[in-house]
């Protein structure tokens, strides 16, 4: 965001005929160097809190497998175990954001492989709708993610956490729904 602001500033300068050459010729560091401390403190050191909700049979077991095989992923995710992804009431997602989660990740069995036959098919529709409502409420799309991770896909779990954490770091803290103390 900060970078964008500087680019915009440079572009404005160009439009009004100010320092056009300098702004183009100068490296980016020139613009942001004075704010390096700020960037490091506020943006880079932002450690998001990510809530994971995982089904017992596939994603939770997959997450265990990631551990058993000693894969490494960021410590930002905290997983709540439920028996099936269909247990997840959309209100859980909203409550999580109110509790201060910067991102919410839901994990279930691959569609068609549900331990309870059809549970994740309901979850899929329900969560797709939730995504729409979140969008409507003004929550950035990237903050909520649904992934199908089977019990044998430990590496997939680690990959998803890695990706999602970076994504949330880029989005910055979630303040829209968070209940302020």
């Amino acid at each position: 965001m900060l970078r964008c602001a500087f680019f915009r500033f440079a572009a404005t300068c160009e439009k009004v005929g100010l320092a056009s050459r300098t702004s183009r010729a100068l490296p980016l560091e020139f613009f942001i160097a004075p704010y390096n401390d700020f960037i490091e403190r506020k943006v880079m050191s932002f450690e998001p809190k990510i809530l994971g909700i995982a089904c017992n049979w596939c994603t939770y077991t997959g997450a265990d497998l990631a551990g058993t095989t000693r894969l490494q992923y960021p410590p930002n995710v905290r997983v709540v175990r439920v028996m099936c992804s269909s247990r997840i009431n959309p209100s859980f997602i909203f409550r999580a954001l109110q509790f201060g989660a910067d991102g919410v990740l839901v994990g279930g069995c691959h569609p068609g492989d549900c331990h309870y036959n059809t549970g994740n098919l309901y979850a899929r529709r329900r969560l797709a709708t939730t995504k729409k409502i979140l969008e409507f409420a003004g929550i950035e799309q990237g903050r909520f993610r649904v992934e199908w991770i089977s019990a044998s896909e430990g590496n997939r779990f680690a990959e998803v956490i890695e990706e999602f954490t970076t994504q949330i770091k880029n989005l910055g803290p979630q303040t829209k729904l968070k209940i302020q103390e």
Partner: protein
Amino acid sequence: MSRIGVFVCHCGLNIAKTVRVSELAEFAATLPDVVVARDYKFMCSTPGQEMIANDIKQYKLDRVIVTACSPLMHEKTFRKVIESAGLNQYLLTIVNIREQLSWVTHDIEEGTSKAKALLNGAVYRARNLAPLSSRVIDVNPDVMVVGGGIAGIQAALELANTGKKVYLVEKNSTIGGHMAQFDKTFPTLDCSACILTPKMDAVLQHKNINLMTYCEVSEVKGYVGNFDITVKQKARYVDHSKCNACLACTEKCPGKGVSEWDEGLVKRKAIYIPFPQAVPQKPVIDKESCTYFIKGKCKLCQKVCEQKAIDYEQQDTFSTVKVGAVIIATGYDLMDTKPLVQYGYGQYPGVYHSLEVERLFNSAGPTGGKVTLRDGSEPKSIAILHCIGSRDKNYCEHCSRVCCMYSLKFAHLFKEKTSADVYQFYIDMRAAGKGYEEFYNRLIEENVKFIRGKGARVAESEEEPGRLIMEAEDTITSKFMRVPVDMVVLCPAIVPREDAKEIGRLFNLSTDKQGFFMERHPKLAPLATMTEGIFIAGVCQSPKDIPDTVAQANGAAAEALTIVSMDKMELDATTAMVNPAACCGCQNCVRVCPYGAPSYNPDKRVSEINEALCKGCGCCASVCPTSAIIARHFTNEQVLAEMEGLMEF
């Protein structure tokens, strides 16, 4: 106000390496409602368990939090501990700080702070827990075994010998599986038929075994202790209750089908038994190749049958079997090697796959045990190629485990039966097993040529038409080789049965990347699956040799026995219930439940849940608009409290 005890496990250094456990325990003691917090080296050991039990009594704890490994690992262990100390077992919360924390994090600061957050979540959850009472159900004493290979046969016999009734379901018209196709077994070179056929016969004769050949499982209902399994009996077009196995029909039949048993090397009749020692030794009609079914006339078999056993009108029939436990032993297929065009399988007649060669060696096989090529001549030079499709990122990443050893067996048999030169093209020789390395050494002395290098290509020889050229790189001498050969034997990857996916869906089993069935735990529960009461044995779990398969089958039989030898068993109490005062009668729950547990009571205008059918997924609880449905142990309050706690730190 609850009185919570927190017990933090070091798990040796597994947890203590990336989490400051004593700091975590001190932190726990500061949380509201926590009365006692301790850390210990191994919480699951006897002193650890005693410590928990003593503290429950001493501090009058009414909630226990164990901060250790995954609940999938030791939840049951700790539930027993607190139960023995007089606390309801559902008042336990496990915090997973090993699999999902210490093993996936390097930094001790990050690890400790995440552990604090997880522990805080657990404290929040624990406050909201309620004692639950387990359901007690009757257990059906019978067992079903799916698959009649050596694993299925062994498991069925073991169970039947203990006096339990066993239903052995086999897809083919005979039991025996792949082992019955082999001639010799490595490394002892004892005759496969001699050790298997007595077992097959024992299955047929056993009064406790109900042998269901030419059958498939079509539907599975119920749960551990009480499965209702629908079995489809495919139409044999021969009434086996009348047939006296004279086999006059098989002599007269003019139909020609491809013999699956001989891997397509020869033709068989349309009414047939797969091989002379088949069990049961009664024929079936293959509709695809039968002249009557194709052209509408023939009926030669009906004419010669004195027992009037031929019935062209027979239909598939379905029957329901009630059992308490199931053993799945569906075995394997060989990978189709046709897509690997560089090896020319299907293109050059001199290229064989390993099961075809097993049949060539077999004295009951198409050549009567003589090693001849498809044109009838004897090969003078033979190449055996290991790892075709296995250990290959493009096809199957796994090692098929038995190929090295059966290749050695082939080499020995080729040397014994022909005067050919035998070349082995291998990547690594894997001879880990009792007597395997010794067998390998013996083969080296038998003048078999071992070339370390994967076979690259099979091509037709330009100098000598009709012969093949085997191209490979010898990685020891770094030389490119072109070896003229008459016969190439491919050792394809072992893959799960084509219909394994379907079986997995029916019995609710998950599969790994290759499609083999997943065990509950790779080390400590290699035969159990995620579905209670369903066990796996043999190659359907992963490639293995006959001794390992038999050992697994015995193990699975013992595991199944522990279930079916109980009269009653406890089921998880984590079912859903309806609060009738809040229910609005919308019937959403009735619509979404895959098991039909909720039903609508029109008199009271509310839904009711049949707990015997409920499996506790909680789907109904999340569609309930008035939150009248409570998913026990995963109630809205419990889940939301846990979330709140997790997000607090």
